[in-house]
C-alpha cells in the first residue's frame, strides 16, 4: 500500500469497549491504553458519556475537538462513537497539528481583545 492510501493510520486510534467500559480491543496509536482495563477510567470525557449510551437510542455520536491529557500527553482529538450490538467502537482522530494552529490564531485574537479591555477599565475603573 502506498503512503497516500493510508493517510489516517498515524492519527487514528480505535477502541472497542463493552457497554460497562471494559476495553476489549483496538490499537494504541495515539495513546497507549494497555495499563487501563476500563475506558471510563481513562478520562472523565469517556466517563461522562456512559449515561448517554444507556439512555439514548442513537447509534452514532460525534464530538469534535476534545482536549485530552492522558499519560502526560496532550492531544486534540475528534471522537466518533458507533454503537453496535453488545459493544461500542470509539474512533479518535488526532488532529492536534491542525487544532494547535487554530488555537494560536484564536488565542492571539482573544488575548488582544481582553488586554485592550483591561487597559481601558484600568483607566476608567470598571463600568
Amino acid at each position: 500500500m502506498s503512503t497516500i492510501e493510508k493517510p489516517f493510520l498515524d492519527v487514528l486510534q480505535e477502541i472497542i469497549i463493552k457497554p460497562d467500559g471494559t476495553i476489549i480491543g483496538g490499537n494504541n496509536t495515539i495513546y497507549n491504553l494497555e495499563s487501563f482495563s476500563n475506558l471510563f477510567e481513562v478520562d472523565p470525557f469517556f466517563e461522562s458519556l456512559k449515561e448517554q449510551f444507556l439512555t439514548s437510542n442513537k447509534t452514532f455520536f460525534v464530538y469534535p475537538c476534545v482536549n485530552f491529557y492522558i499519560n502526560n500527553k496532550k492531544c486534540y482529538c475528534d471522537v466518533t462513537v458507533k454503537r453496535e450490538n453488545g459493544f461500542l467502537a470509539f474512533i479518535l482522530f488526532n488532529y492536534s497539528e491542525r487544532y494547535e494552529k487554530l488555537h494560536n490564531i484564536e488565542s492571539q485574537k482573544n488575548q488582544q481583545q481582553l488586554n485592550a479591555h483591561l487597559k481601558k477599565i484600568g483607566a476608567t475603573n470598571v463600568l
Partner: protein
Amino acid sequence: MNSSQSKKIVILGHFGVGKTSLVRRFVDSMFSEDYLVTLGVQVKKKVVTIDDAKVTLIIWDIEGNSSISKARKSYLTGTHGFLYVFDVTRPETFENLEDEMDFLANNFPSIPVCKIGNKSDLLLTENAKEFFEQEQYKDCDFTSAKEGNNVENVFQKITKQML
C-alpha cells in the same frame, strides 16, 4: 438516594469570562493570570458531598461563544445542569443574558441553570456594585475565580438543583 450518581455540567459564556478559571479554582484550587484560550472542550471531574451523598460532577469546560446557539450540539447533549458565566466588567458578555436564558428554556426545558457574574474582584466602584443590584441580575451569583470567592458555593448550588 443513589450514592454514586454522576452529573454532567456544561459551562457556557462568551470568551474570556473565566470559565476555565472557575473550573481550575474549583477542581485544582488554582488560578493563573495567563489566558489560555479553550478550543473545543476539556472535561474535568470532582466528587462533592451533598447531604451525605457523594455526587461525581463531570464538568464540560467548552470554548467561548457569543451565543449558545453557536455551541456544538453534541457538547450540550445529556447535560444535567448549566453554569452560564459572564464577566462583570464586559457588558457585551451579559447584554444578551435574557436571550441566552430564553434559548436554554426553549431547548433544554427543566435543566437547571445558574447565572454567574465572574471577576467580582474587579467590581471596584459603588456604581458598579449597584448596577448588578438591578432586578434582572437578582438571581445571579457573583464569583471571583482569582480570589476564590463564592466558587465552591455556585457548584454546590447547581449540584443541589440537579439532584
